[in-house]
């Protein structure tokens, strides 16, 4: 009861706080999700993507 009361008072009592929570979570959540999925994707496809072999050719051109 106390917990739900605290939750209610902190987040849901005022509309502005709740909207802020919604948008903040959406922003942070998408960052987190994209970051995680990128990391998984890159680990599955290690060495296969252009960014993994790019250094061979970019460095070679600069030297």
């Amino acid at each position, binding site marked *: 009861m106390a917990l739900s009361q605290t939750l209610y008072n902190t987040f849901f009592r005022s509309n502005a706080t709740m909207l802020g929570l919604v948008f903040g979570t959406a922003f942070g959540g998408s960052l987190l*999700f*994209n970051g995680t*999925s990128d990391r998984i*994707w890159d680990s*599955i*496809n290690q*060495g*296969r*993507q*252009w960014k*993994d*072999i*790019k250094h061979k*050719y*970019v460095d070679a*051109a600069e030297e």
Partner: protein
Amino acid sequence: MLARSCARATRSSGPIRSLLQKATSRASSTSASEPSKAGNVVGNILATSGATLVGVGAVAWYYNQYGPRALAMTPAEEGLHATAYPWEHEKLFKTFDHQALRRGFQVYQEVCAACHSLSRIPYRSLVGTIMTVDEAKTLAEENEYDSEPNDEGDIEKRPGKLADYLPDPYKNDEAARAANQGALPPDLSLIVKGRHGGCNYIFSLLTGYPEEPPPGAAVPEGLNFNPYFPGTGIAMARVLYDGLVEYEDGTPATSSQMAKDVVEFLNWAAEPEMDQRKRMGWEVMAIGSALMLLSVWVKRYKWVGIKTRKLVYNPPVGPRSRTPRGA
């Protein structure tokens, strides 16, 4: 069909036989006014067997006429089905191997580009997938393209830039036909999507040329035998031989390695969006399954009251109504 009609014939002959027996026994025991009836029965039998024969014959004739599937295509015309290879880049979560794409582009440039165009690929799409910007610019500048008309209205040539498309080996289709004994080398931009079997077909075709055509195979003049090509007579001769190109990354250039690389490159040419598509696909799957679970939970939450309620019928207590039913 045939068996069913036979069964029906035997079944229908049963009562007739008993009738016949009855008739003959009756004819022998009673007076001589019966022979006409016996003759009638024989006629019945003849008619029934005749009808059965006609029926069976009709079925047999129909099957003979329409039963066997008539195929306009012979297996040779259809071509040998390509072996299914476990392509790494065709797996659900795998991108193209960009090192292989680079090798494949080298094979395309040094081997295929002599006859085949790749007209839907601009130099800019090679940047960041197969080569660096500088390499692509250098490559583009090796070719000349038409510029805008100048003040006299003449169209001058200018070196290529990143926005230009890869040049065609021939001016037009007629020139291509004339140079290839009437056969038009197809454009390779979408060839992986445009052929049954895709990667498998092209790989099998490139590596499937036998040393010499099998005995009995008719190979017209100017064509080569390839079992994977529909019709088996293909104008393109075998092009990939071991060591034909020299890979810059030191990969041994066997003919199957080159075929594999060029097929992966052509698959990239047909589907340059594949990497992005698969990546977005699995993100959509992840979010979609989370939302699916959520919606299942919400549904159960909303329905729990309806699913667990009980309807109790309490019959009214008191004297029964005297009015008869339906009054």
